């Protein structure tokens, strides 16, 4: 067979086979595959764009989060400071109240002590007076037992009492 002369039969069958294969693949083969590949490419492109956008948003959200965190920190510090101040105020006020109360209680105690002291003194004085009277009674009784000496002693006491009264006036 001469290699450079095409055989009509093979040419005919080849054209027929290739034509049929092309027709079938043109109808039901390659367009489905290529359109799906294109659709997936588009899908990937869109997904990538969305991912970029999401990343961008995420970065924004992160920034926002950082800002919120920073604000929260500042607020926390402020609140803590305020709390500390309030605590100190409360303590100082409590101290003041406690001091006042203590002073008041001290004063009351002093007053009570003073009253009790006075009462004690009064009681003591009464007892002393009673004792003095008793002693004086005994002394007087003894002295009054002698009539003359008794009268002289009464006069002397009378004079002394008058002189005290005059001195007072």
């Amino acid at each position: 067979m001469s290699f450079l002369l095409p055989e009509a039969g093979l040419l005919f069958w080849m054209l027929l086979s290739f034509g049929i294969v092309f027709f079938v693949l043109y109808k039901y083969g390659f367009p489905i595959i290529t359109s799906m590949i294109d659709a997936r490419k588009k899908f990937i492109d869109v997904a990538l764009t969305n991912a970029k956008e999401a990343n961008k948003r995420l970065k924004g959200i992160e920034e926002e989060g950082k800002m919120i965190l920073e604000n929260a920190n500042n607020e926390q510090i402020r609140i803590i400071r305020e709390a500390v101040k309030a605590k100190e105020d409360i303590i100082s006020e409590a101290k003041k109240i406690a001091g006042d109360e203590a002073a008041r209680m001290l004063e009351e105690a002093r007053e009570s002590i003073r009253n009790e002291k006075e009462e004690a003194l009064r009681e003591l004085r009464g007892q002393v007076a009673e004792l003095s009277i008793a002693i004086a009674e005994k002394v007087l009784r003894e002295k009054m037992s002698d009539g003359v000496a008794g009268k002289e002693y009464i006069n002397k006491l009378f004079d002394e009492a008058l002189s005290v009264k005059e001195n007072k006036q």
Partner: protein
Amino acid sequence: MTGLRYILVTLMFFVAGFQAGAAAHTQQNGGVDVKKIIFEHVKDSYEWHITTVGEKHIAISLPIIIYSKRVGWEVFSSSVFHENETHKGFFISTIGDNEGKLVELDEYGNEQRPLLDISVTKNVLSVFITSFVLLFLVLYTARWYAKRKPGDPAPRGFIGIMEMLITMVVDDVIKPNVGKKYRKYTPYLLTLFFFIFLSNIMGIIPVFPGGANVTGNIAVTLALALSTFLTINLFGNKEYYKEIFWPNVPTWLKFPIPMMPFIELFGVIVKPFALTIRLFANILAGHTVILAFVSIIFITMSVNTYIGSGMIVVSVFFTVFMNVMELLVAFIQAFVFTMMSSVFIGLSQPEHRH
């Protein structure tokens, strides 16, 4: 290391097989006609010889379909020639330009070809098998895609390879060369690429249903080139035809003697021939070189059995190397044919020049 061991064992099997085969072949024939061996393997035939077991040839008989002035349409199996040399006046020629072809005798006793021979030869059957396999592979892939949505995971395995090849051909060959209207031509160019690629791969496979020299046959490459020629010229735009028949050159170059239109027209006719010869020559050369390396065994065996045995290792090494090279060539040739077709189609869609 394990891989290397497997390769060496496989090579040893090849060597042993070749040695036995070569010894038998040289003993049978007494000498070696390398040209005949190569031509028998690369030429077309009316039956598909698979192997020979002892004296028995195992072959697939194919239908012969002819139209002759003498007997009209005739359809019969090529197996009839196993029993008789002639059938209704037809026989296979063994000499001259018609060697291996079906002929009949005219009234002067000269061999002549029937008016029409559309027999299903070895290459035709191989084209059918390739077409069937291609249809199956692409339709299977298309079916896979039809069942999925764009958001589904990307394919793996075979479908992944198909997608990789399709994307490569579309993005690297069709889009840049055809231009804006590439979508219209994509199915044709993809069919072209896969048909050539699959035919080339089938040609490398040494056993049935492979081994036929399909793309190394000028009729096949001519049919493919004619398809591209028709695509170019049927869908070429006005500007394309204007550039052929009234190109933008000084008037004296196109009137009264249409020199430039003639050159342009010549270019239009030459394009399919360039496609035809390039693919045909490359694949035929590849097949021939592989067979020549294999034939070294037969030649050296006929000279001396010991030298022949030594040469088997060299021959098997070169044959394996050439087969690997042919794999690359199978892809490159399909790629180049598709690329050139894309370029020619792109040239038939020129933009209007102001």
